[in-house]
């Protein structure tokens, strides 16, 4: 699969989408965001279908179907278990445990909003999962974790072989008359798989050692990094506890942010000591820049306190009595900024760039 944008641009887009979805409960804005996310997903799926016509099996769910399913069941679930709200639609008999009582319009509306939030989160992740290949995600693992990045690379690389081996073992056992009827019949499948894997691990370890992968053996972790992590965690914990007390929320945010920065700084410093080589660097294009600007715009509209913008419409609560949600045209327009990744790059340079990357 061929991502059209830089991996970091997708990460920024995903993070912005999640922050925006979690920031609002207004069903109108959530609906607009869902619409833009579906557009981005469809654009990614169409591109993949064009590039790899036989890849339909890798696109398992339609986001529209998934949204309808989640919103419907969330509404039913919340409607049945919620007893809040002043507009009862009907009453369930009291003898039904946990469910008996009034089913309210507000309960259903709250369920719909929850369903929209959940659908938005799922579609955003589905889009990134669909667009970015596993190798791009592995590249995101910070340098400080290079042994784990190697482990993940090995696991992802060997996974197709391992699944192929599962099929081969199943076929071999089937030829011998073995049929999988219950759990007990898994033993002749699992043991050859496990022992084969362990044998390959032995061979791989020898190959890696022969090629010089043992440089850090026995080398202790940097003591300063541990101190940085311990203090970072302490600040994070203290800040988070402060945030649970309404009067100390600002102090809490500052303290936990400091802890977070200390942890990231420590890991960054450790990572600097690790040399990373690049077979081919990812490039940045104008489209990446537009996506990042769009994300910055939508985040500022949703999160920053502008005096000229009334942001009361971002919050919405159907309880205790349902009302029509407020609407602000500027916030609605900002919500469409998330659609930028759906724009197709048409110039030949980007096609060439894609071609190079698909050969990567």
């Amino acid at each position, binding site marked *: 699969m061929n991502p059209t944008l830089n991996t970091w641009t997708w990460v920024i887009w995903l993070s912005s989408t*999640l*922050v925006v979805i*979690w*920031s*609002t*409960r207004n069903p109108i804005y959530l609906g607009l965001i869902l619409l833009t996310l579906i557009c981005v997903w469809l654009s990614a799926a169409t591109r993949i279908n064009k590039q790899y016509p036989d890849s339909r099996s890798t696109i398992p769910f339609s986001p529209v179907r998934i949204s309808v399913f989640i919103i419907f069941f969330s509404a039913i679930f*919340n409607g049945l*278990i*919620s007893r809040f709200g002043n507009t009862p639609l009907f009453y369930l008999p009291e003898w039904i445990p*946990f469910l008996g009582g009034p089913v309210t319009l507000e*309960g259903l509306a709250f369920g719909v909003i929850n369903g929209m939030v959940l659908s938005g*989160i799922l579609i955003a992740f*589905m889009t990134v*999962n669909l667009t970015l290949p*596993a190798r791009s*995600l592995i590249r995101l693992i910070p340098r400080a974790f290079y042994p*784990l990045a*190697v*482990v993940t690379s*090995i*696991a992802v690389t*060997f*996974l197709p072989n391992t699944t192929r081996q*599962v099929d081969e073992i199943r076929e071999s056992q089937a030829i011998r008359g073995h049929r999988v009827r219950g*759990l*007990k019949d*898994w*033993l002749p499948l*699992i*043991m050859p798989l*496990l*022992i084969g*894997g*362990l044998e390959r691990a032995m061979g*791989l*370890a020898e190959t*890696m*050692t022969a090629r010089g*992968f*043992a440089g*850090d*053996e*026995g080398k*202790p*972790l940097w003591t300063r990094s*541990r*101190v940085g992590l*311990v203090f970072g*965690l302490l600040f*994070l*914990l203290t800040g*988070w*506890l402060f945030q*649970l007390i309404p009067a100390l929320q600002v102090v809490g945010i500052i303290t936990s942010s400091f802890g*977070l920065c200390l*942890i990231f700084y420590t*890991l960054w410093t450790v990572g600097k000591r690790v040399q990373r080589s690049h077979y081919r660097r990812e490039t940045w294009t104008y489209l990446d820049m537009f996506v990042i600007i769009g994300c910055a715009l939508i985040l500022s509209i949703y999160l920053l306190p502008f005096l000229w913008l009334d942001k009361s419409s971002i*919050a919405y*609560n159907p*309880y205790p009595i349902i009302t029509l949600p407020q609407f602000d045209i500027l916030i609605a327009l900002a919500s469409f900024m998330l659609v930028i990744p759906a724009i197709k790059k048409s110039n030949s340079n980007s096609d060439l760039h894609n071609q190079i990357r698909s050969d990567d």
Partner: protein
Amino acid sequence: MPSSETSKTNFSSILIYTLSTFIGLMGLLYPLIFPNLMQADFSAQPRTAEMPLMLTLLLAICVIVILYEVQGSSVDAKFVALLGLLVSINAALRFLEVAIPGPGGFSPIFFLIVITGYVFGGRFGFLIGSLTIFVSALVTGGVGPWLPSQMFAAGWAGMSASLCKPVVRAFGNKGRIGEVFILASFGAFWGILYGMVLNLWSWPFISGSAVQFWQPGISWIDTLKRYLVYYLVTSLVWDLARAIGNFIFIMLFGAATLKALRRFKRKFSFQYFPAQSIEMVEDSQN
């Protein structure tokens, strides 16, 4: 390394494990620990939107820090290769699960997480647990906000499996069916605990019937009661299938797997020396 340096390293290591676990647990258990801290009308507060994001971030940081500490100092090729291949096998078991679906929340991955954690130690167990979840999420498109809490719980399932060693020793069961029974019971315990931990991530943000859902300001006993009712209604059957599945799976395949892993553990316990150092050793012996 000098002994004072070693003790400092061990102390800071223990501190990192303890703090990360403590923060992760506080993040999940705060509705029980601090019932009075939040404002009364929680569902109407904007913090309803922020808290899931914060909890995801908090758990992700805990997992990141523990992973950094667990990956540790002695990262040799054998460790990396063995871990990579076992994670790959465990992720493939998830595919096998899709081909031959089990009941409810049953997943064969816990079988290998518990057994490898028991045989190779807590550090290896944590890595197997968290990386299995991570790798299978990468290849199945399952990356989402739920991932840190899944990695945290599965990692701890693997890490705590090493606690079975003293129990097995105490009963003198090593190499007997009793050893497999203890591991199977441990797997069943984590089958339930895994579901309970994952539910805690979302439970405080769901609103509904007063007998099942969290309400700020009530005592921790009432909170616990409500959580248990919620768990009973929504998750127990699902998690029970996972617990029973883990128990049966380990009982059926545990003995053979333990034997194979122990054999390979012995095979893997060798050291590579550069040719020059071998000559030096031989010279010193002569």
